[in-house]
């Protein structure tokens, strides 16, 4: 439960901080906190999968509220990103820094394309989907660079809040039979 609350609060505040930092940097230069958090959950969530699914939707929902997207757009992409990270982590070793960077770069590009496709589908009058390959590359690179640190930080937080670590060991003395 502690883990769920901690991640839910992190999901709430991290995008707010990201939005404030965006005032001081050009668009695309601030790492996508929501995506990084979801990938970190996909790679290292130790608890119930159902809770992780709900958390990833919550992460996306907060992004939707703090963004110009339709409500549900980031939530859906967040869910897909979590699923992708989870499935890939079951088949590949994603513990090394380069693989984590590659995964996040790929998911950034994928989520950007998916956002563009969803926008084009639901709001066709908004014009063609995302353009600007350079912007996409730049944002993927920024996210990739931030990924190992973010994944390690979330992993560390989850380990710290491990619900089993606080339990005391029950010592069982062998029973002595009296003659």
């Amino acid at each position: 439960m502690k883990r769920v609350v901690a991640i839910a609060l992190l999901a709430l505040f991290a995008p707010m901080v990201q939005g404030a930092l965006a005032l001081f940097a050009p668009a695309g230069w601030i790492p996508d906190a929501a995506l990084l958090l979801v990938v970190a959950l996909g790679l290292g969530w130790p608890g119930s999968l159902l809770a992780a699914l709900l958390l990833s939707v919550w992460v996306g929902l907060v992004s939707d509220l703090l963004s110009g997207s339709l409500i549900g757009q980031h939530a859906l992409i967040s869910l897909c990103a979590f699923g992708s990270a989870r499935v890939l982590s079951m088949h590949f070793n994603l513990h090394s820094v380069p693989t984590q960077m590659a995964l996040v770069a790929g998911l950034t590009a994928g989520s950007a394309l998916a956002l563009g496709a969803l926008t084009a589908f639901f709001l066709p009058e908004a014009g063609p989907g995302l353009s600007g390959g350079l912007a996409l590359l730049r944002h993927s690179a920024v996210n990739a660079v931030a990924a190992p640190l973010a994944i390690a930080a979330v992993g560390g937080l989850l380990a710290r809040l491990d619900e089993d670590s606080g339990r005391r060991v029950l010592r069982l003395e062998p029973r002595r039979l009296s003659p």
Partner: protein
Amino acid sequence: MTDNRSRIAIALVSVALAGAALVSMLVDRRSAGHEFSWWSGAVLDLAVPVQKMVAAPIDFVRDAVRDYMAVLDVRDQNAELRHRLAAAEEENLQLREALVAGGRLARIAEMRDDFEVPMLPAELVGLDVSAWFRSGLVDRGRQHGVFSGMPVINEQGLVGLVTATSRTAAKVMLLIDRQSAVDAMVQRSRSRGIVRGAHGDDLIFEFVVRDADVQPGDVLVTSGIGGVYPKGLRVGEVTEVSGSDSKMLRTAAVRPAVDFGRLEQVFVMLRRGPTMDLLYATEDGDAADSADARQPAGRPRS
């Protein structure tokens, strides 16, 4: 067996969540402009102080660096006058700030006279968390009389449109967002067209070539047609006209009048156009000067 069941359950939950997200998008598309519900409004209300808190130390450091750079400039000057110059520089900085603020206010006052619309100053506290959308969060909401559909400007020109509000915050779709479309005209020739957001901080002016006279350097202003923005708000300046004369629809690259990279203080025009009154239903009809506000019909387009 149990493992299989749990896998099926997880798959079903995933599909249900994805379905809910899709339905939410559909609902949001149809009902854009409704004020946020209590829980989503609470997130926005919470974002304002959090983002102000995060921005404050960065602002402080940035100002300190600027001041330091100014002092370095002064050091290079004549040694005999250094002391006096440093004092003058200090005084100058304060006066410059006052002048800038005074100038802004004067220009806003002029605009206000032009449009006769009450305006509310607001501070931009955060930008879009997604790199692919261009919106911002301002620290004024329903309790200050801000509602969806109200135009937002600054002393440079048109900034965007309020698209959602909570009690103490409002989300503003910036002019440079891809979903933004503004009916505009060339101030010199009165040729009309649509200004849309392009990627980056640029705009695109789409116009029908037949009767259009558009040249680089032309200033674009809102046309007032479409009932979203008042007529005459500065939108930007044409930098390049592309496409051949043989095409019906041509485009021009436009540099926005507003420097979106340095957006700080904005003004919300507290009256929205007739189209916005038709699009947006409000809980407080008087705030929008609309006696017969109807149900919203979709995302706002000028």
